[in-house]
């Protein structure tokens, strides 16, 4: 597993660097050789325990965080909304992941998001600031992104975008854990893991919306989470991604987790009664070979 993962990474990166077709073939050959995509989902009221349950089939946090790793946990804290309004990742889910990453011996755990509403209001009203305030571990840093730390990155495999400003910590992380909330979105229908990666982008992000699906897939070629945990403890069915009306919220008490970002999005899509192929970013990312979108080909475990 270790060796295979390494080769896969090398193949992906060298493919990215050279854009040479043969490397792609090697990559695909390796992908075909690899075992079935694993995805876990779990339902329960105790969100702290739920995180442990959903990670267990994937090998627990130890499978994703090694001692002294630099870990980035990237929730969605985009909006000035309360936890029950389902616009941001649930604070308990973030808290549990941070705790587990620390338990796994992470060297540092960074938690941040570039918000859409005013930064401080989002951090406070999402409940995440309060939830993390209880952890007195110096390895944890919950901070507002620093303007100076966005670095321009060439998106060599990009089809719709070839350069983006990306937050340095997200690029340097040994383990990048994506923790989106699953919700409605006017343009893309749903926002989940791939869309959540926009939170590490600098500059004016609005232009991402022009051909959003492809651009999110392009972004996913460079921002590659080791683990995606989709928060569907409560989902927003309309007036997303910001919500504000509790009538649009449905409580599912569910988490979805996978090492495959595309698979996680694909499965979470079904929670809304939609098919993975209806989400442009899922289709585009699959086409780039970034993950599995066919539910039949996944090994789905109810934990």
């Amino acid at each position, binding site marked *: 597993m270790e060796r295979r993962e390494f080769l896969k990474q090398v193949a992906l990166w060298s493919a990215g660097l050279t854009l040479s077709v043969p490397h792609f073939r090697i990559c695909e050959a390796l992908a075909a050789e690899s075992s079935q995509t694993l995805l876990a989902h779990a339902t329960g009221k105790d969100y702290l325990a739920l995180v442990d349950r959903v990670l267990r089939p994937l090998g627990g946090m130890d499978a994703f965080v090694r001692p002294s790793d630099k870990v980035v946990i990237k929730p969605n804290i985009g909006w000035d909304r309360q936890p029950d309004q389902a616009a941001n990742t649930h604070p308990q889910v973030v808290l549990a992941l941070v705790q587990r990453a620390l338990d796994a011996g992470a060297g540092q755990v960074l938690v941040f998001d570039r918000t*859409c509403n005013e*930064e401080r209001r989002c951090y406070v009203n999402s409940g995440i600031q309060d939830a993390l305030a209880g952890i007195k571990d110096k390895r944890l840093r919950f901070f507002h992104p620093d303007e*100076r730390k966005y670095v321009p990155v060439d998106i060599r495999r990009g089809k719709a975008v070839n350069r983006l400003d990306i937050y340095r910590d997200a690029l340097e992380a040994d383990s990048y854990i994506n923790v989106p909330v699953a919700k409605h979105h006017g*343009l893309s229908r749903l926002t989940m893991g791939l869309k959540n990666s926009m939170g590490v982008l600098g500059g004016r992000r*609005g232009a991402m919306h022009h051909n959003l699906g492809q651009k999110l897939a392009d972004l996913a070629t460079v921002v590659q989470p080791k683990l995606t945990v989709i928060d569907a403890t409560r989902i927003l069915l309309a007036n997303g991604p910001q919500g504000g009306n509790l009538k649009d919220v449905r409580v599912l008490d569910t988490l979805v987790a996978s090492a495959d970002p595309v698979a996680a999005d694909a499965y979470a899509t079904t929670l809304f009664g939609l098919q993975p192929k209806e989400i442009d970013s899922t289709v585009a990312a699959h086409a780039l070979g970034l993950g599995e979108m066919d539910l039949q080909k996944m090994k789905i475990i109810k934990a």
Partner: protein
Amino acid sequence: MKNPKSIPPYYWRRLSQLACLALFFFLFIHTDYAGSDEIKYAVNILFRLDPLLALCASVAAGFFIVLMLPAVLTLLLTLIFGRFFCGWVCPMGTLLDGCQTMIPAKGQGREKKYRALKFYLLGFLLVGAWLGLPLAGFVDPFSILVRALSLAVDPAINALSSTIFTYTYQEAPAWVNGLTEPLYTLLKATILPFNQKYYELSLLSLALLLVIFLLERLERRFFCRNICPLGALLAVTARYALLRGKAGRKCGSCHTCQDVCRMGAIDDKRIISPLDCNLCLDCIHHCPGNKISFQFGWMSKGKPDFALSRRTFVGALALGATLPFILKSRTMALQPDPLLIRPPGALAEGEFVGRCVRCGECMKVCIGNGLQPAFLQGGLEGMFSPVLMARTGYCEYNCTLCGQVCPSGAIRKLSAPDKKKVKIGNAMFDRNRCLPYAKGIPCMVCEEHCPTPDKAIKFREAVVENSRGEKVTVKQPYLVDKLCVGCGICETKCPLPGASAVIVTSAGESRNPAQALPDTGRMGY
């Protein structure tokens, strides 16, 4: 006898000045969101202590504004202690005193020529405020000071420090960053604003403040002696003050007291005028004969003369009485500027401009950086009053800070649910520029950010031809007027370069029924 070991009296004055200045800066820095919907500290107490603004705003409103009750305390204390406020409390005065060595006055300043100016100005301002020409905020020392600090100095300091620390971060070796980064973190946590803000009229705001400092070149405290209308109001009150300075009668000819008096309050006969004396107590300290003292007592020797020219004073009042009517000849009296979008909770325009003291606090505290000082959108007299400029920033849906810091109630303090019911404007789409309409490019950033629980910006799917001649299906935004609150986030976030394709105007604002929007099937429109 002077005891050399005792603390000279002016030390107490200095201590008070420094303490008040420190308090002022503390409040200024904390006039910001601090993790709670309710603001704890705001610099607005300074404005509520200001009897000039209280009087002008109340005269304009037609009733006493209870929010500004603390100003009465200032007047009462002035009745006892004279213009102590100018010497012991006023942060502007303290800063002027502090800059004395940097901008030394040329002469001793026994010139009385301009002394009456502030009284003319006071009369003009009061009559103007009463009849509808609110100008107090242009010349009030706190308005000038806080405005310049909020709109220019604070953002400039932030820009300077971010430039320096970006340079060290990018170019300097690691050991330098080991020092600079913790320093930057410390500065950010203490004195620097949370993020970079951008303001209209920042240079003009700063220039007005600088003029006051440059006038120090002519005489010490030139502004306080000659121009400050707040000083004038306090002087009128101080005329009846109980505490008075008394100089010796048979004290020779040294005139030291006259030379050291920062207010030029001591005449050749060594009479200390309560109209000017700000109780700095320097004269006590410097008098070689130790002949000056301050004592309580009913004024027996007649009240000091204002030295006004009756003709000029009547002229000033007449000007204040006529100018307001000239304002009514402007086109804006007929039709308000559509870009004059006032903050949520703002009173009806006439009342709002009358009560707004131009302090700039709402703009300082506006976390969306949406509130900007108006230039001429609200007329010359509306300059520096707050307007929402939605391309620069927007009104944060859940935030109510501007109403909380407004010292005069020009912006009402609203609860969050009440604020959400206020409509400050209405968005409209420019279909010639909006991408899904004009180019067949999908976008919908406006809809994504629209904050109302039932989105005011909705979309329809349409098949359009894009610039390559392909037929594409795109989502095209449209507005539901009755859901739109006019917050302007759509305009701020519109990803088009330059002008936004969605523009907010004051049409439909709830404070002005004359701006009601047409509604399908409504009677009488």
